[in-house]
């Protein structure tokens, strides 16, 4: 009888490796799905604490989806209490300043439009699309992360792109 010696991730080294592998993905996922005002970093911490507390019950192959579900639920609980703050409040960061005022204004205007358009996407579309465009993840990686098929990821991303372009033109 074959017995899996590592049927939990309760020891520290395995847990740390697991953290290094998945914490950033979880953070990005929560960030793009819910925005930054709900402290995705803290939710990552909380989700990992929960995982550690229940490490004896969670099988290693299920740990990743357990972690993402916990993170998502933590966020949803927070959203329940903060319905008012649901609006996407992302502020673009400035990297360059020596440009002429007109260009700056135009750029600002464009970014504002983009922000509104992004917040108008559905959560599913936004998460998949931003993970793809900003984090540069392949469709397959996103599919694994979200536990959906590659086809579904393609559909979400393409749908998001179409919607964004349409919204920006209209605004």
């Amino acid at each position, binding site marked *: 009888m074959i017995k899996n010696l590592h049927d939990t991730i*309760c020891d520290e080294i395995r847990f*740390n490796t697991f*953290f*290094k592998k998945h*914490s*950033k993905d979880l*953070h*990005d996922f929560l*960030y*793009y799905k819910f925005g*930054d005002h709900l402290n*995705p*970093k803290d939710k*990552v*911490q909380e989700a*990992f*604490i929960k995982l*550690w*507390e*229940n*490490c*004896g*019950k969670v099988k290693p192959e299920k740990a990743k989806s357990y972690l993402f579900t916990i993170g998502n639920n933590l966020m949803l609980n927070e959203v329940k209490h903060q319905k008012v703050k649901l609006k996407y409040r*992302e502020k*673009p*960061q400035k990297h360059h300043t020596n440009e002429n005022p007109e260009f700056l204004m135009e750029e600002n205007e*464009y*970014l504002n439009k*983009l*922000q509104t358009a*992004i917040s108008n996407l559905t959560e599913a579309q936004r998460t998949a699309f*931003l993970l*793809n*465009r*900003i*984090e*540069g993840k*392949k*469709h397959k990686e996103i599919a694994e992360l979200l536990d959906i098929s590659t086809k579904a990821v*393609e559909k979400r*991303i*393409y749908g998001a*792109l179409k919607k*964004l*372009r349409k919204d*920006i033109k209209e605004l």
Partner: protein
Amino acid sequence: MNREDLIQKWLDNALTTEEFKAFKQLEDYDELMALDNGLKQFKAQDFNTDLELQRLTNSLKNTPAKATSWFKPLLRVAAILAICLGSYYYTTTLDTSIDTLMAQKETIALPDTSTVTINALSSIVFNEHSWSDDRALSLEGEGYFKVAKGSKFKVNTPVGTVTVLGTEFNVKQRTNYFEVICYEGSVSVEYNTNVVILKPGDSFLVIDGKTIEKTPVTSTTPSWINNESSFTSMPFKTIISEFERQYNVTFNVNTINEEQLFTGSFTHNDIDLALKAITLPLNLTYAKKDGTIILKSE
């Protein structure tokens, strides 16, 4: 390759060099690039994995892994069991208590075939569940017992204890008054430190702390069972207080000598007849007024 396929491939970051050239020729190219650049401004905050891991390790130091996950459910089970056992124990050891009010009599069947009839303003307390091990009850007031044969049967009163095996007897414990009459079998009465054994017809009477000898009774049941109280050479005050209990009245005795002895009986069903029965032999007159009865000597 058509436009949509190119865009799809671009989205998957999977364009070959040639395809990329074709993609560059698309009229959408500029717009898509602007969008892509704009999106870069929305990048998630830097996530420093090592720093976050450090944070996590720190907070985990205070929450050790729950290797003993079996302990909590066990505690829950134990708590439920404790509650169940506790309430079971509580309800089974709860005493049964029966009281009678003024002018009320009640016959109670005890857990074995014994019965007890209690007179007005009396109470008994017993435990149904320990009855088979210990036939004991507490009595305050007056009760007539028919005890089934079996183990020792004990009647505890505030002043004395009556112990029997299987018999019929009457116990009357009132203020400054303690009387046990045995009708059948034999009864042992423990009063202060004395133990007295009563044979059928014998009685044991204490009034105001003094033991009083009485002639043997010939009846087989106490008269109050048949709704009549009868007395032989009793101080008049005991008759008065029994009367008060049976009819729920109070007496105003004025200057009458309450210590004089009375022999006779009164019924529990007719107050006028009963009043005559206790006043005529002593040459008294009575007047009723709002539940108070005033007695006068003629």
